[in-house]
Every structure is written in structure tokens, then in C-alpha cells.
């Protein structure tokens, strides 16, 4: 089997599809591309593919990663062109690399894509509803707080999370046109993480960030492992 890693986008057009739906869309795209895809065994064969950290509904991305396998070692340009031309609106193929598996005698395999993810960089754009100074102060207070607690409520369970443990760097604030721009680098760990939308909620509700949350647009710009974009780990 020959493994490839793709860096894909999730554009504005498909902001509101789930991670599972995104995977289904990619599966159909690979089939349309007529690539010699490898399938799992069993009654209900599926394409051998895996994804990095799932994205929340409503978030766009320039850093969706997908590993997939082919039964023939096609050259990079051929796979790139075929896959690119089969993608639906809202998904673009940015980069593609064959995954070089370590030799069997070295005794180790590539880690699963999911397990390689350590950090994500997100940008949030939202209208400013008031003073810039107030925004600066809100972000500053959040950044300097030693501990921030968030009460996460999901349909299945509720739990309390200490947020600051996941902040790799302080939240950066700037203006982009007439929109507020927040940039955040978040740790993604085996035991959990915090979502950018949750940080925004804390900033607005607890720290008084004067922004219009209802119009906020979130984008994931990078996913990193060992400090490098995942595409550079293969």
C-alpha cells in the first residue's frame, strides 16, 4: 500500500457540514478522481483514510489533513491533479506528499495522523461593538489571568475545564479592516482541549470583549505537530 498525506481546506461554502460528512465527501471525491484507492476488508469496505483533529460545525479551515492509501505508487503530480479536479466547491487541495514509511527493520511505523496533532492556530473575525481600548483590556485580562474556568455543557454531559492550560501563547488582538481579529494557539492533547468558540465566549461574557459573537467567523489556519505543520512531518 502507498500512503499519501493531503492538506485540504474547508471553505465557507461547507462551513456547516460535520466532520463525518466531510469525510464522506472526501471519500466520494477520491472515487470520482478514479485513483486506485485501497479499501478496508470486510462486509462493508471503506476507503482507507484518516483525518486529523475534527473541526467544529461552523469553522472553516486551511489546515485539514487527510491520510489515504492507494494500491499503486502513483507520482505526486498525478494524484494531486486527479484529486484536485474531483473536489467539490468548498474544498481545495493545498499540498500533497507521499508518506515515506520507515523501513520494517527500524521497527516503528508512522504515528496515526490524529496522534500527531499537538497544537492548532485559529483566527476569529468579528464586528467590534464599542471601544477598541475595551477590547484590548479584555484580551489583556484574559491573557494575564492565571486560571480560567469554563463550564462546558453538551447534550450528553457537562464538565468544568481549566482553559489556560491549553493556551500555548497569549491571545493576539488586531484589527482586520473594520473587524476585530483574534489569533489563538491552542494545545490539542489526548486528554482534551478547548474550542476557539469557547474562548471567544469567555472573552465576551466574562471579560467584556465588545464583539458581536453572533457574526463571528472562525478559521483554523494551522495544525502543528512537533512545532511543524503536519504536512511537513512526512
Amino acid at each position, binding site marked *: 500500500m502507498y500512503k499519501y498525506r493531503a492538506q485540504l481546506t474547508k471553505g465557507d*461554502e*461547507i*462551513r*456547516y*457540514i*460535520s466532520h463525518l*460528512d466531510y469525510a*464522506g*465527501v472526501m*471519500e*466520494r*471525491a*477520491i*472515487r*470520482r478522481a*478514479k485513483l486506485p484507492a485501497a*479499501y478496508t476488508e470486510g*462486509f*462493508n*469496505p471503506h476507503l482507507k483514510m484518516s483525518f486529523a483533529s475534527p473541526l467544529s*460545525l*461552523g469553522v472553516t479551515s486551511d489546515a485539514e489533513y487527510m491520510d489515504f492509501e492507494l494500491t499503486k505508487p502513483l507520482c505526486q503530480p498525478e494524484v494531486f491533479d486527479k484529486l484536485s479536479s*474531483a473536489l*467539490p*466547491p*468548498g474544498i481545495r487541495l493545498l499540498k500533497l506528499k507521499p508518506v515515506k514509511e520507515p523501513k520494517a527493520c527500524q521497527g516503528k511505523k508512522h504515528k496515526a495522523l490524529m496522534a500527531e496533532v499537538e497544537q492548532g492556530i485559529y483566527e476569529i473575525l468579528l464586528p467590534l461593538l464599542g471601544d477598541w481600548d475595551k477590547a484590548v483590556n479584555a484580551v489583556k485580562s484574559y491573557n494575564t489571568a492565571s486560571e480560567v474556568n469554563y463550564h462546558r455543557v453538551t447534550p450528553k454531559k457537562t464538565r468544568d475545564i481549566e482553559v489556560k492550560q491549553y493556551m500555548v501563547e497569549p491571545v493576539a488582538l488586531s484589527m482586520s479592516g473594520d473587524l476585530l481579529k483574534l489569533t489563538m494557539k491552542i494545545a490539542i492533547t489526548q486528554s482534551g482541549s478547548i474550542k476557539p468558540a469557547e474562548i471567544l465566549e469567555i472573552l465576551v461574557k466574562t471579560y467584556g470583549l465588545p464583539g458581536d*459573537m*453572533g*457574526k*463571528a*467567523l472562525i478559521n483554523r489556519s494551522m495544525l502543528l505537530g512537533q512545532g511543524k505543520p503536519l504536512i511537513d512531518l512526512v
Partner: protein
Amino acid sequence: MVKLEPEILQAVEKPARYTGHELNAVHKNWDEVRCHFALAMADTYEVGMSNLGLKILYEVLNNREDTLCERVYAPWTDMEAIMRQRDIPLFSLESFREINSFDFLGFTLQYEMIYSNVLNMLDLAGIPIWAEERSDRDTFVVGGGPTVYNTEPICDFFDFFILGEGEEVISEVAAAFVAWDKNSRPGGRKGFLREVAKLEGIYVPSFYKVSYDEAGGFKSIEPTEPEAREKIYKRVVKDLDKVHFVEKPVMPYIGIVHDRIMLELFRGCTRGCRFCQAGTSYRPVRERSREYLRELARKLVDSSGYNEMSLTSLSSADYSCLGELVDDLFADFEGEKVSFSLPSLRIDSFSIDLAHKMQQVRKSGLTFAPEAGTQRLRDVINKGVTEENLMTAVEAAFKQGWKQVKLYFMMGLPTETDEDIIGIAELAEKVARKYKEVTGKWGVTITISVSCFVPKPHTPFQWFGQLPKAEFERRQRLLKENIRERAVKFHYHDARVSVLEGAISRGDRRLSKVIFQAWKDGAKFDGWTDLFKEDVWHEAFEKCGISMKEYNERQRSLDEPLPWEHTTPGVSREFLRREYDKAMAARLTEDCRRGKCSGCGVCPSLNVSIRDWKRDEVRIDV
């Protein structure tokens, strides 16, 4: 143009229902075409996107250079609430334009229980609900689909209807519009309706006057305009190899109801089950050629990326070259991991062998439809299946390894007695015991699904009084008490919905005010059991002074005029009468596909003929 803010889309269930941009969706320049068509289903995105007819018409219309076609479905209740609160009008999924800026809004009418949703969508679109209140600026509201053989209960909401198969006539409608528009729209709205009324298969209800007798019964319907025909026959495609079929389906980003390729093998089914409206309304049988189907299958796999294909038809196992076609498809798609399925199976071992071959290893479950519990009643409905047929079929299935069988039945069929109901339980138990006999062990699941019979227009049972709700419920209890085998699981339909469907499906023009009232009082998504508001409907009948029983429970006399006979699929009243008499005598009628002509009247009145590739080889009576 409608723009939905993130806070709206974040607040609703499945927001991708409203965001469009799917692969293969067609985006045309609004100003470069004359005819703007919105195709709708008054149900959710997932249901609407699964409809084959809409997929075909979408491509047919968009293949015209002078026309664009976009899609719209019913917003779910959460989205509707937001749209009403914020004054967001109903919009299309391609250009996000307001629906009332389109020239046409075409609804596919799949079943009666979506009528309240049709009104709701018109209201959300800002289109006047009553056709007579629409002005020259307003969108033309068009209906088509399976319920058009009695449109009277909703005809006051529509400008016109398309009867029968739409792929040819819809293009004629678009052409007529373009010509009328180029000609500076002579005669205004009514002028255009006069033009379309000239086309075969088009019914313009406002061009007719209905009269009632002194007792309030329906008496007659007469044309009032020279263009209006006395009788409107459905449209029918003579050669299905020569009309456009779906080639590039719009690919949803989210899961839909039928999330697979639908390859339509043929239209029509003439097995002649007397309860079945599809059986009379899609006549005659016309098969596509094996070569054309192969070609279509290839195009569809390539353009969609789906790896599942359903070979659809009313009774797919009747396709004359099915075995060969399946072999072709297996060969063509070897190595592409495409799986094939048949949506319905005939009760015989040919079907079982084929299903076995198609499913290879996965044995998901088999479905058969004996429809009635005793031989007598199966003969009444002309089902043409014996207990022996069923036992042979399930025996073959159990030998092949299946251990889940679903059996469909109906309750409330004409002449049904308690013995027939108990017969359902007995038949299911015999199937369960057959499993033990074949495999030597227990562990089979037999699911019996029992629906409530709704008599439909243009069927031999169109005169029958439907059972009252309480009687349906008594028979459901009776059946439940008579199931003793643990392997048998019993599902039944909600009788509350079936009796309403019974009233509306054989209704007349007076029901439009009831439907309007029910919608005003909050009826919507009536086909969704948890949203069905029984009280609202009963109150609506009361408020309008109309008796529901008069429509659903009343036994019609065989010589009374019926309010739907002027819009016909071509089966004659005489044929239906003969079938009614034969039903009462429990006598069978042959399938004319290969057997004797039953004289239903469709072929001569529509100038069409049966196409079955093996007809001449096996025909019993030439």
C-alpha cells in the same frame, strides 16, 4: 438575495440544509435567461434531495439555454421560526434569491400529507396562497407528481398542474413561457394560462366550474374557457431510452434519505393489485434498454462518486433482462467497490437468488409484501401470491443465510374480516417456523409492518368507504393479541394520519378551505408523526362545516360522478368497474405485461404501448 448570518446557522439543526454549493448544482446567470424555475418539495432537504423526479426535471430545465432551474425545500420548524421572526423570505439553494422572484414555483406532490407544507412554503415565499389572488407580477405555482390524479382539494392554491411524466412537458411549458414573455406577455397571467392549457397533460383548474346537487354531492365539472379540455390525460413517455435521465446528480454534503444512485429500470407495473394507485397511474410498462442502463450507470458512478446503486422501479425484479443487466453491471464495476440493491423483491426464488448474488456476503434483511393474511383476501386485491410462493421464497432465503424478514401488510382492505387479520399473525408465525425447519434453530426475526388502507382515486377500490379510526385500532389490537411467537415483531401505522389521508385523497374542491384552515391553525409536517396535530385537522373540518366521514368513510355508489375523473391516467371507469366486480368475486386478473390485455384503456387512450424486451418470447396470449 438572502444572506444567513452565522448566528442563524449555528442555531438550527443541520444547517447544511440551507447553504447549497453542492457539487453538480447548476449556477446560471439570472439575467441571461428568460425563464426562472424553482423546483420544490414541501418536505425537508433530505427528503427532497432524494426524489428522482426532481433530479430529472432539474437537469431537463437546466439543459435549456433559455431557462434556469434552482431548488428549494421546506425549512425545518427551527429554521422557519427564525425566518418568520427576522422576515427572511423563502430562498433558493443556488442563487439564494427570493422564491417570489422566480417565474415558476413547481412542487412535486408526493403524498397528501404535505399539503399543509405547500401552503406554508407559499406563505414563507410571500406568494399569495390562493391562486385567484395572484397578480401579473406573481410567480406561477405548478404542481406535479403522484397525487395529481385528484388535485381538487388543493387546486385553488395552484395555477396549473402537470399530469403524468414531466420530462417532456416541462420543457414545453418553459418554451411556452419564453414565447409569451418575448411577445410582451399578451393577456397577462390568464393569457399564459390559456397557452399552457393548450398543451397535453396540463390542467388549469381555474378554467373549470364545479356544480353540486341539492344534497351537496358532487355533480359535474365543466370547462369555462375554450382552451380547457373536458378530460385531461396524463403525459407519458413512449420511449424511455430517448428522454433525458439524470447524469450529474446534485451531491449533498450531508446524508439524505436515499444517499445513493437511483437507476430507473422501467416505469409502470401492471401486476394489477387493486388497491395500488401507482399500479394504475404509471401504466403501461416501459422498459429502458439494457445498453442504455449500462451507459447511464457508468455516467452516474463517474459523476457522483457514490458506491451504492439502487435499481429502482415499481417492481424491479420484473425487469425482463435483470439477470443479464446485473451481470453487466458486476463486470463493468469490478474493482470499483460499487454495491447494487433492489428496493423491492418479488416473492419467488429468482428474486432470492438475485438478492443473494447482489448482496454477496452482507445479509441485511429481506422485504416481501404479501399485503393480506389470507388467500381469499389476496385474491380480492389481485395480489397473485400464494402462501406456497411465500414459503418457497423464504425457504430459499433462509438457506442462503438470511435471518431477518420484513413482511408488509395492509389493514382495512375491502371485505376484510377478523379471520383475515388473524391470518396475518398466522402467516408470520409460519414463516418463523419455516426458519426453524430449514436451519434447525431459532433466532430469526420476522417484522410485520401493517399499514392502514387508504382507498385512492382511479383504482378499483375508489368507491370503497374507508374504515373509521376506532375500527382500525380495534383490528390493530386484535392482531397484536394474536401474535404469540416471540420472533414476530409488529409495527403498525398511525390510523389518525391514515383517515385524514383518506379524506383528502378522495376530496373535492370544498376541502381547500379545510386545508387552509388547518394550516392557519398550525398544521405542518403532517407526515411526521411527532408533529401531526390531529385536533387541528378535526377542528378545521368542523370550522368549515364539512364532514370528514363524508369523504373517507362514505361508500360511494357505483354510478355517482366522482370529482377526480376529469384528470386521468387513462384507465377507464369501465375497467375499474370490472375490476371492482372481480374483486368482490375474488377473481384474479392477469398481468398484461406478458399475459392477456385486461382492457384498462391506457394504451389506446394515450397512444402508447408496452415495452418489455422479452414479451414476445414468453407471452402467453399473442
